[in-house]
């Protein structure tokens, strides 16, 4: 048997070069590549073969590196994205087409996508769309909705020269992402790509029960007797307050639970140790005792009189509620000629970004630095100030690239754990959540139970609207209060309704905290409202789209909050933009179904529409953004862009706005990203506020800088600026002036000209009836979808979407399309397949998100109805994109097979049960 044992080292070709490396028996190739060979372009999303992010080529065949033993590569060739980009013509073409098509948003799946595509194109030089879909079926993307990725692969297959035009990037132009190159060539540094190999590792000790009491044995003795363990962290190690929360009045979540855990997966301690030891460390060997306690995991159980209370002072487990009332809903419903009502439910939805939380922290000279993925760096620092009880000058948040957020990375997760680990050991530490840990412990979309009654008069006008919804907010508040507040404001949908009552309640349960997820409760309420609208239209005998157009809110009409917009209300235009497709598709569907009945086929088509609106920015609360920029002597224009780009494109959009306001090409800007020490607060990437709020700050900052320049020669507004090394040339009505930068005083940051401006949208508080001015602007959306229902299997396949969005002004239409398509993919997932069940779907094969074969072509119609408050008229978009999707699908299912589905996800089982009960 000699010669048969692969001892250390293992030798193979890595990206064309011979490497030899150690690896323990059966070590994942992904681990070896990343931690032993520095190949951090191989991304890890699940370590279970469920996401494909770690795809590499072994002897030319794409495989999941996480499922491959390193020894299996012995003597073979292993290629990763970085190697391919350096050597392979197809890969280089793909890096270009991915950028041209906007196929990389956050970029975490991109290495897996491009590597897989290289293998496909080597084998098949002219693949069909279907073949590309199938080839990419094993790589999950949560941002793009896949269509742009598929387009990019198809374009790369075409044997023609790729043209990448030079651009100035003016507002309205579809330029490539400014941060796109690193996302396609493997160089982007995500949260797990920062820590050097060998860094001390932090692992959390998490509650195995939904509710449990626990106590520790002698932890000091445990550390002393366990070589390789540096420290155990518990609540006792928190120097400040062991409490955080994104909404100060509701802050209730401990960094480490103190005596009782309130949800399965809650951290109660963390162990810091040598990485090799921590990988194999048996967490059960920590001296501690658990006692499971009775738990309540549903709203109805949590509201029962004998239910255990999760938090003192929150009687009945009610966290808080929201309320909006105008007119008299009861009287109007009695007066109505027709009424419809229904009860609706939805479950937890997991964000399922492909990048699990990770981070790296250092502690030097009394200052802690946290490198982690986040949507809100300044909020992270504020939370850490309270947790540490330290001055903010001692805390620095340096965000890494973010591999998807969608709301969940607004809350801190591992930041305090790694900070405390670095502080206690005095050494750098790192932490990486496993997929299961990420799913168990981070926030989710709120499960909802909604009852709604809507009335209409025989002329088709809404007459009375009564909404009551409870939202399972889980163990801690997180963004639950925001959901409770937003839902009653938005539950009307974008319609003119004069008699309205909407009440919401957030209820605590022993479940993971529900927090922010694209739409903050509005997607749930839209399902109830938009599907009942279809029922009402049917009762009235009015076309479903015409019914919506008839009731659509318009300029100078009052919202249910009594807010009147004199301009910028674009829902009617969105709905009207669907009319052509609506009539065409209805005819198609009818013809198809007639033929299908004739042929005895179980397949039916259906077409559905739904609309949505969303107020951009915080609800009746300040949410300023600041944008700073400076010009250096060498003529570099530096933009401190603190709006976190989580894939949506803030780095590009904010830069385009700033460049336009200043009057220079966007290519001239040098971007400095979010960093709490050097870039001012641009607020959180949330609530569809960055293009609107930070965009305005960028515009003001660009204008201010331009004014400072023009003022020197009293040049007119129409002057053109040319900024070059050492000078700025002002060209104004045939007069030229030159500012010599070299003679100007330089500030501490190296700038000779500086501008910094802040924008905070104008809002007014809501009174006890929810009357006021919650938002300075809304954005509007309407989706149409055609679905195919298999009435014998209960399966639903979306065939095509038409999506109309009023974005006020599309700063970058390519990025707008990316948001729309990605939002639709998430809305489709929510409608048809996604439900997180604590303890049961804590991985990406039991929790399903759409694959490349589930998202059909999407025709995006961009409506530009400018808003007076928006930068160049722009409105927010990030959440609007998934609000109408699920109800449009449910309406299409009804159109196809005459069953009303009032719960999501409408899995095959759910739909079949409904069909059988018909």
């Amino acid at each position, binding site marked *: 048997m000699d010669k048969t*044992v692969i001892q250390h080292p293992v030798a193979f070709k890595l990206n064309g070069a011979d490497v030899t490396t150690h690896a323990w*028996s*059966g070590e994942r190739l992904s681990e070896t590549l990343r931690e032993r060979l520095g190949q951090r372009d191989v991304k890890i999303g699940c370590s279970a073969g469920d996401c494909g992010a770690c795809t590499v080529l072994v002897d030319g065949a794409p495989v*999941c590196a996480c499922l491959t*033993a390193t020894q299996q590569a012995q003597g073979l060739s292993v290629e990763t994205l970085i190697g391919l980009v350096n050597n392979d013509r197809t890969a280089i073409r793909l890096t270009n087409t991915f950028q041209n098509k906007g196929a990389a948003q956050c970029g975490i799946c991109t290495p897996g996508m491009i590597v897989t595509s290289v293998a496909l194109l080597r084998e098949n030089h002219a693949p069909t769309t279907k073949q590309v879909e199938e080839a990419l079926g*094993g790589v999950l993307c949560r941002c793009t909705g896949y269509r742009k990725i598929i387009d990019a692969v198809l374009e790369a297959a075409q044997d023609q020269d790729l043209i990448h035009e030079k651009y100035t990037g003016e507002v309205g132009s579809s330029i490539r992402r400014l941060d796109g190159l690193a996302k396609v060539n493997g160089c982007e540094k995500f949260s797990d790509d920062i820590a050097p190999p060998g860094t001390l590792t932090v692992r959390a000790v998490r509650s195995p029960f939904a509710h449990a009491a626990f106590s520790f044995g002698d932890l000091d003795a445990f550390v002393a007797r366990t070589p390789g363990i540096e420290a155990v962290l518990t609540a006792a190690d928190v120097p400040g307050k062991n409490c955080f929360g994104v909404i100060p009045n509701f802050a209730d979540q401990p960094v480490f639970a103190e005596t009782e855990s309130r949800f399965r997966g809650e951290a109660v301690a963390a162990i810091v140790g040598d990485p090799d030891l921590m990988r194999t460390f048996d967490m059960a060997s920590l001296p501690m005792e658990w006692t499971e306690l009775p738990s309540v995991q549903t709203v109805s159980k949590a509201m029962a009189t004998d239910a255990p209370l999760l938090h003192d002072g929150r009687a009945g487990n009610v966290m808080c509620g929201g309320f909006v009332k105008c007119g008299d809903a009861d009287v109007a419903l009695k007066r109505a000629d027709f009424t419809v009502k229904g009860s609706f439910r939805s479950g937890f939805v997991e964000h399922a970004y492909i990048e699990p939380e990770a981070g790296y922290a250092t502690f030097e000279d009394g200052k802690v630095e946290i490198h982690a993925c986040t949507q809100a760096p300044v909020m992270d620092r504020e939370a850490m100030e309270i947790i540490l009880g330290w001055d903010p000058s001692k805390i620095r948040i340096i965000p890494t690239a973010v591999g998807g957020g969608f709301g969940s990375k607004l809350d801190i997760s591992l930041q305090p754990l790694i900070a405390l680990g670095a502080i206690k050991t005095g050494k750098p530490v790192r932490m990486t959540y496993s997929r299961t840990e990420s799913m168990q412990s981070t926030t989710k979309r709120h499960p909802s139970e909604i009852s709604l009654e809507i009335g209409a008069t025989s002329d088709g006008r809404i007459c009375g609207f009564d909404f009551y919804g409870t939202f399972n907010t889980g163990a801690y508040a997180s963004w639950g209060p925001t959901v409770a507040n937003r839902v009653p404001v938005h539950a009307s949908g974008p319609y003119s309704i004069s008699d309205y009552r909407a009440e919401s309640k957030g209820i605590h349960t022993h479940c993971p905290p529900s927090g922010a997820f694209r739409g903050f409760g509005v997607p749930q309420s839209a399902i109830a409202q938009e599907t009942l609208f279809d029922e009402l239209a049917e009762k009235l005998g009015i076309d479903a789209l015409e019914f919506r157009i008839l009731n659509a809110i318009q300029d100078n009409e009052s919202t249910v909050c009594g807010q009147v917009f004199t301009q910028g209300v674009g829902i009617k235009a969105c709905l009207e933009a669907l009319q052509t497709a609506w009539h065409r598709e209805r005819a198609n569907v009818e013809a198809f179904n007639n033929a299908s009945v004739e042929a005895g086929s179980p397949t039916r088509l259906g077409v559905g529409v739904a609309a949505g609106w969303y107020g951009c920015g915080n609800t009746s609360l300040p949410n300023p953004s600041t944008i700073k920029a400076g010009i250096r002597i060498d003529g570099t224009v530096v933009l401190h862009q603190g709006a976190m780009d989580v894939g949506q494109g803030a780095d590009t959009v904010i830069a385009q706005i700033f460049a336009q306001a200043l009057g220079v090409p966007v290519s001239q800007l040098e971007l400095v990203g979010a960093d709490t020490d050097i870039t001012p607060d641009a607020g959180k990437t949330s609530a569809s506020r960055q293009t609107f709020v930070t965009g305005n700050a960028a515009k003001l900052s660009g204008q201010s800088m331009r004014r400072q320049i023009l003022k020197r020669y009293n040049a007119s507004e129409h002057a053109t600026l040319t900024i070059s090394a050492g000078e700025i040339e002002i060209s104004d009505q045939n007069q030229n002036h030159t500012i010599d930068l070299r003679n100007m005083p330089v500030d501490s940051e190296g700038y000779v000209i500086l501008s910094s401006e802040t924008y905070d949208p104008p809002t007014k508080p809501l009174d006890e009836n929810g009357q006021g001015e919650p938002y300075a602007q809304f954005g509007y959306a309407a989706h149409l979808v055609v679905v195919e229902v298999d009435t014998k299997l209960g399966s639903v396949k979306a065939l095509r979407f038409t999506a109309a969005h009023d974005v006020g002004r599309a700063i970058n239409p390519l990025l707008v399309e990316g948001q729309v398509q990605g939002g639709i993919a998430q809305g489709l997932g929510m409608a048809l397949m996604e439900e997180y069940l604590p303890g049961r779907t804590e991985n990406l094969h039991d929790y399903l998100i759409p694959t490349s074969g589930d998202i059909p072509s999407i025709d995006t119609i961009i409506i530009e109805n400018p808003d007076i408050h928006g930068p160049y008229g722009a409105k927010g978009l990030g959440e609007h994109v998934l609000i109408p999707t699920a109800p449009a699908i449910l309406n299409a299912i009804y159109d196809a097979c005459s069953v009303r589905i009032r719960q999501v996800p409408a*899995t*095959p089982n759910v739909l*079949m049960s409904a069909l059988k009960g018909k």
Partner: protein
Amino acid sequence: MGYNVPNSLTDALAFLAQSDVKIIAGGTDLVPSLGDQAAKVNLLDVSRLTELRTIRHDKTGWRIGAAARWTEVLKADLPTCFDGLKLAAREIGSRQIQNSGTVAGNLCNASPAADGVPPLLALNAQVELSSVNGVRMLPLADFITGVREIDLRGNEIVTAVFVPHHPQNAHGHFLKLGARKYLVISIAMVSSLVWKDSQQRIAGAHVAVGSCSAIALRLPGLEAALLGMTYDELAKDTRIWGEHLDVLSPISDIRGSGEFRLDVAQELCKRSVLASLKSIGFSNG
């Protein structure tokens, strides 16, 4: 504990006979099961044994080497009775999984939802088990004994899957219902193998259902009832598909209820058998 790569089957069997060993082929099940820890027993990597990689046939039937990857099955030039197996191969995980995962691995993992099992049951596959003591052949139905349980002795290794010849016009098919398009664990799946006589009537039918019992099962009652039927008769028949499902015992889980699984199984049986029939066409009869 070592990672062992034998040079020959003889070496592999000798190694198996003398120590506690886990066999690794594609790695797609074994590697994640290690959970980021070094294997606690010796690993025996059989994926490089060329005698285990080949797909070949002789006058008794087809022999698919145990370590043949699913991609290799897909690319192999196989008769139409294997069409169901090829359709299943395309559904096993993703391209990435198909490039690593092996036929025998899918069987040895013994998941009730293993996509490879129903088509191989329909093909009357046998499993070839080798040890230093010799070779034994087991029908696939006897090899898988329960959820994640197989009849594999400590010193044995699966060396091949043997599929006997079927009539030249036998066509296989495979259908699976999942909650999304790709990379999905099935709610229910069916594989069928059908051939006809010169009168266009079914002369032989094998139907196997997966994900509806602890072990995927053939439906002997349905197979018997199908004999002598024509496509048109079956297309109109509303009773035959539901009358022979008693052998199934589907559980209710996150993917679907037991009742729903039976509904789906019934419909998939119908579609799969009809699709098999249709692909035979009329000229081959």
